[in-house]
């Protein structure tokens, strides 16, 4: 497996950044859960409007969805600038494909690193959720982390394809503002998408992140069903598969000219 020859490369890169990422991936969800889950949640719970959110406390409602949202954000950040930099500023990919590594190996290697970042970020977040009393079962928690990592991949792989087609970083600002932020706000993590106008609710349901939020919440708060798992996981995998096809094409076009 040629792709494994990149382990030392990514380990060396990671050694420079991991301390910072662990701290932020712990501190940021603490902020969110304290402000929105606990602070805002007190008003929501007091208003007695929890029927719309399945009778859950607002903290229990928001917490699990945070896993999917965080995975989405981590995945997109890790798959935009770091990818473009290796094409145009550092040309790391070009250096890699001058070795026995093939374009596919390079793609697998970098995606593997993104998965590692997703696993650690989501695992830390799971610990935070447990500290806030949101997680009641280890198995359910680990299942939700696995789903969140899959959500991350459903965003990372298409983002690799997108980044490989950029000539400069101006497209990223657009992607963050018109893609990431609306998906963050309207993914169903903070309120049910059924509260949105019907047409917009359906758009929200087409995003991978909504499927991740729903499934993470169902896993952690209980009430998960097999058809739901199959449906959500299947839809997320579809994004990974189509994204892979696009990403490999884009990488080849750029590296094997």
């Amino acid at each position, binding site marked *: 497996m040629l792709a494994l*020859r*990149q382990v*030392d490369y990514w380990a*060396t890169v990671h050694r420079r950044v991991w301390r910072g990422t662990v701290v932020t991936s712990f501190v940021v969800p603490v902020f969110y859960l304290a402000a929105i889950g606990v602070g805002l949640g007190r008003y929501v719970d007091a208003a007695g409007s929890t029927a719309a959110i399945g009778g859950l406390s607002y903290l229990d409602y928001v917490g699990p969805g945070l896993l999917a949202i965080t995975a989405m954000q981590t995945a997109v950040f890790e798959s935009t600038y770091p990818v473009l930099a290796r094409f145009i500023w*550092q040309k790391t990919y070009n250096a890699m494909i*001058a070795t026995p590594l093939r374009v596919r190996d390079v793609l697998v290697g970098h995606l593997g690193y993104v998965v590692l970042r997703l696993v650690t970020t989501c695992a830390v977040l799971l610990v935070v959720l447990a500290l806030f009393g949101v997680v009641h079962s280890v198995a359910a928690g680990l299942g939700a982390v696995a789903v969140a990592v899959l959500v991350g991949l459903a965003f990372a792989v298409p983002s690799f394809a997108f980044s490989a087609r950029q000539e400069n970083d101006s497209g990223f600002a657009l992607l963050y503002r018109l893609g990431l932020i609306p998906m963050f706000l309207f993914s169903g993590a903070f309120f049910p998408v059924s509260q949105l106008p019907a047409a917009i609710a359906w758009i929200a349901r087409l995003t991978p992140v909504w499927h991740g939020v729903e499934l993470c919440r169902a896993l952690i708060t209980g009430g998960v069903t097999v058809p739901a798992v199959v449906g959500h996981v299947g839809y997320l995998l579809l994004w990974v598969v189509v994204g892979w096809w696009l990403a490999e094409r884009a990488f080849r076009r750029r590296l*094997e000219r």
Partner: protein
Amino acid sequence: MAVNPRQLRPQRVPDARAETQEPLIRARGLVKSFGDFEAVRGIDVDVRRGEAFGFLGPNGAGKSSTMRMIGAVSPPSAGELRVFGLDPVTHGSQIRARIGVCPQEDTIDVELRVRENLVVYGRFFGLSRAECRARADELLAFVSLTDWADATVEALSGGMKRRLTIARALVNSPRLLLLDEPTTGLDPQARHLVWERLFRLKQQGVTLVLTTHYMDEAEQLCDRLVVMDRGKIVAEGSPRALIDRYSTREVTELRFADDGHADLAGAVTDRVGNLAARVEVLPDRLLLYANDGEAAAAAVSRGGLHPTSVLVRRSSLEDVFLRLTGRSLVD
């Protein structure tokens, strides 16, 4: 007495002559096109083991495209290409495992330190960590960067980065080294250091294939070269043979006080007669291509023409190059 049956089979004796005669790189009718644009328009090349082979040409001649095809990262659009007898399209990984590539632009990883760049790169070739570390130290010494092993890449000068790139290209102990403009942008000291190291590699039997638009580089390093222009090979041979064929032994450069060099060309041609094979008019001087430059200069002054300066020099590859590819500027 037990006889190992395998010993009875006739051993295939490697034919030393076939080994040396089989070209390391063989291209026939090689084409690379990008959409409607043909960067390489059907070239034939043979590079033999152990030689230093150059692709010489102005910008846009197709040198880099050719190098990328040989380096098995860019599939040919048409024609046949074999490197180590293998097809780069189907055996790219195997070919790349055996070559070293020093690209035109440095692709050193700025996130890694100097030594880390070598160690990590060696791993891509499947070398063990211990081998990578040993190789890294050996190569840092070879390119005189031992003291910079733990420095960041940003701290290196242009010449040092180039040397690091060359060291990295050697991490897998390649028998074939591809160098795309190895000394472009380097100061004279740095260039000479790179040339000296490349010469040492050549003496160790490494086959060098390089592109350059520096004539002195081609003359210094190449046993044989091809001149490329607009995607085609326009001449081929050793530097000396090319000079003999396309130029004269010497060149006499004449400058006159007034700017009318073109007007004087007729008179000069008339005076030198058959002492000069060719007279070339440039805006600021006249070039007499002659086998005896002094004699040509003497004929000019005997004929009553008095240039303000006369320079007799050996003909160089530059004269060949400019004759073949023209003097107009290529963007």
